[in-house]
């Protein structure tokens, strides 16, 4: 294993993740046969249908019992097991560089963990950033690509004039295939996140939004007369932080989070708020499992 394992994913974690798989709520047709059965028509039915045999069909799928009874050839149609497109979109805006550990690190960890699950299950894994200036990352498949994936994820740095909308638009233009998109972002874009999510919705992805917030953002530990400087556009806000103002801030944050959650819920987007201070394993094993992204 490359030495990246120690930073993003620990061996214990890898061991845990190995047993998991990514689940999509939507039916996707993969290009290649994968290790998963795609869902079709209701839950837990592997058999799908019969059809008349035509020459050339795989004889293994003939229903020999029917043939004995009816003397006709029918082909059993099963749910095809197919591969899954898994995209992890990491917001690399400067604001992600905040927090201890940084939100970006948290995002990278999460993306790597989910990517690892995908790789193990032979899904098509693509981990991209929203930075339009960067070269699109290659799609990876198979466990052997783990080191490559980790290397790539490791190389992601914050910065760049990343606009959430532009980044997502660029992504959707390049990746037409359907699949799971996990957008890991802090949603702190002055132009709003709604347009970006609509782009994803338009492509009919199974969209997960992991809203990463650092503890400093959730509960700011500042007081006094401050000139707040936006790290992205150097915008300034002069505030005098006092108890009442902090209360207001928390209310605003809660309203912001609730707004995002509401927006997502109405559009069948799974929204998760994540605290960059919590370990990634907990998130995956607890929350994501509950929300059905992964199955362990």
């Amino acid at each position, binding site marked *: 294993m490359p030495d990246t394992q120690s930073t993003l994913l620990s061996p214990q974690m890898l061991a845990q993740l190995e047993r998991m798989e990514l689940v999509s709520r939507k039916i996707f047709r993969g290009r290649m046969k994968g290790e998963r059965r795609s869902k079709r028509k209701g839950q837990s039915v592997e058999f799908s249908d019969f059809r008349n045999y035509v020459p050339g069909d795989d004889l293994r799928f003939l229903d020999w019992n029917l043939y004995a009874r009816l003397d006709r050839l029918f082909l059993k149609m099963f749910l095809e097991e197919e591969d899954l497109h898994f995209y992890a979109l990491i917001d690399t805006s*400067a*604001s*992600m*560089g*905040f927090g201890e550990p940084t*939100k970006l690190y948290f995002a990278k960890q999460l993306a790597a963990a989910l990517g690892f699950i995908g790789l193990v299950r032979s899904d098509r894994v693509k981990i991209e950033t929203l930075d339009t200036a960067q070269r699109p990352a290659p799609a990876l498949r198979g466990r052997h690509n783990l080191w490559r994936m980790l290397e790539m994820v490791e190389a992601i740095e914050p910065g760049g004039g990343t606009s959430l909308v532009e980044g997502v638009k660029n992504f959707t233009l390049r990746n037409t295939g359907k699949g799971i998109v996990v957008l890991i972002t*802090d949603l*702190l*874009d*002055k132009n709003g996140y709604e347009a970006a999510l609509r782009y994803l919705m338009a492509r009919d992805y199974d969209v997960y939004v992991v809203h990463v917030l*650092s503890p400093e*953002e959730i509960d700011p530990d*500042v007081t*006094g*007369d*401050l*000139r*707040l*400087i*936006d*790290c*992205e556009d150097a*915008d*300034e*806000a*002069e*505030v*005098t932080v006092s108890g*009442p*103002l902090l209360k*207001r*801030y928390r*209310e*605003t*944050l809660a*309203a*912001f989070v609730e707004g995002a959650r509401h927006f997502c819920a109405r559009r069948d987007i799974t929204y998760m708020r994540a605290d960059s201070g919590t370990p990634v394993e907990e998130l995956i094993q607890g929350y994501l499992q509950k929300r059905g992204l992964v199955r362990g």
Partner: protein
Amino acid sequence: MIPMLSLWQWLVLAAVPPAIAALYFLRLRRRPIEVPSTYLWKKTIEDLHVNSLWQRLRKNILLLLQLLLVLLAMIALLRPGWSGAEMTGNRFVFLVDNSASMSATDVEPTRLDDAKLRVRELIEAMEEGDEAMIISFSNFAQTVQSFTGDRRALLQRLEGIQPTARTTSLDEALQAAAGLANPGASGFEMGDVSVAEAQPARLFIFSDGRFPDVENFSLGNLYPSEEQKPVFVPIGFGDTSNLAITTFSTRRNENSPESIEPFARLENHGAEPAKIEASLFVDDELFRAREVSLPAGKATSVVFDALEQIGSADLRLEIKTGDALAIDDKAWAVVNSPTRARVLYVTVGNRNLETCLTTTRAQRIADVTIIAPDQLKPYQKSINDGAYELVIYEDVGPLPEKSAPDKDGNTKPTYRMPQANTLFIGRLPPIDSWKAESAVGGPQIIDLHRAHPMMKILDMGDVAVAEAKPLKVPPGGTTLIDSSAGPLFVIAPRGGYEDAVLAFSLQESREGETLLNTDWPIRTSFPLFVKNMLEYLGGAQEDATGTGYRVGDVVTPRGVEAVDRLTVTMPSGEPIEIGRTSLGTFHFTGTDEVGVYRLGYEGKSYGRCAVNLFSSAESRIQPRQDDPIKIGHVEVEGASLWRRGRKELWKWLLLAALGLLLLEWYVYNRRVYI
């Protein structure tokens, strides 16, 4: 007008603009902090704006503050205020007391300054069209500024009122004020056209009230209505105590006439008994010091050890008090070299009068030359040159002068009266104004003019006169002895001199015998009369201590020969020249300072006189507060509650505006949100 601001007030004013400018430099320093995004913070602040009930107000809080600031400044410019006293009416008369007691320092800096301050406030409170007059008064009144609406002039003249050392009398001030308020009263007849229309005016009296009530005065237009009642503003504090010298003089010891005893009277106008040191200085050298106990509210006499063999000296008495009024803590007295009257006595021989004129006592005060009528000629020139103060003609008259014959060729003798006071006994002065009736026998003396210095302490009830020619009193004359038959002794002015005429001879020569016409010469009143005459008509000063004058008195130096100008050196050292009046006498009226005045001419010293306050009323400096001033039938009560004429608000408004400016600065910088 120069705004009445002190230096520090100017400095504070000057500091305001830099202070406002400094606010810009003092902008709140904010700690810069880099945050992931200001998005939420801005949203927080916006949320506040959106959510707050006060959001509209707060959105514009700076605007509101600025509006309020401008509003305050505008109101301040309107100069709001409320009058402490009702300045009803539009003509005012301000009577400002500048007598000695107004120099008391119980009110800082002095009572007079306090009075001026209050008048100034009233003047400043005057409205457009109001007119005012200022009169300063002590024992004489001065119209400082007649009726005008020019506040600048009023204020300027008001500042010019100087303290005096005079006593107080409201009478004259009221006359002056009434002269302009009641011009009709000065008309003599009903038909007289008033020089000015009678206009009511409101009277304000600023004084400590230590003056006698004015009984015979009608306020008339000075009391136009009940609303415009005269106002008396008492100046000073009621519990002010004062120790004063109310008398300081010298007297000759009867037993040893060479020694002079200084004596003084000290008064304690306070509620506490006092023990003070009284120091007597002779020519500025300490001669004696005595400790004097003064019971509260009482007076004490102090007699000092006699001064021996003093020719002339300045005496000064000082008491160390430290009280509010300093002017009565010092007193002066002078001992002049005795001035002897030069008297020429023209007589055919009268043993009684000669004896009286040549006693030791009389010799001390008068230098009497006795001549017979036939010896008169050589003296004529010196009589006419003013070498004598008094010429006594007994049964003779002045020598006639030669004169050119008139048209008819008749030579009518003309007489020239002496340049001196005269006493004619049994003869009329050769002037047309003196007339006598025919002789009557045995007139009874019925009245004496005892108030006249010539007649003081005389008792003539036992005097009989055999025959007299009763006099007709000439214009300006005064009857000194009146009888059943008519005036027997009359004095009348002649230019700067006085002529006294006795209507009866003292003796009569009949057939070689000298008979008494009256028994007066053998009565006790006669030598006293001679002494009075020498002192009054001769100008002699027997006690040689110099006449004590009080402030404001007129000093009339006598017996100054052959000079036209006298120099009076004030106590402050300022020389003042005075000239002879048309009557040939000297009058010095400028006795406004206390101290020793020196008289001299042509470099020679002539004499000195001491001027003192010596007024128990002035030294009693507690202001009149409870008992009203009676002016005629009107009682003017002290408006003790009446303090300030006008309460000004603009200063506070400007101060509030300044505070608001600071608040605005704070709000702007701190982004204060409630």
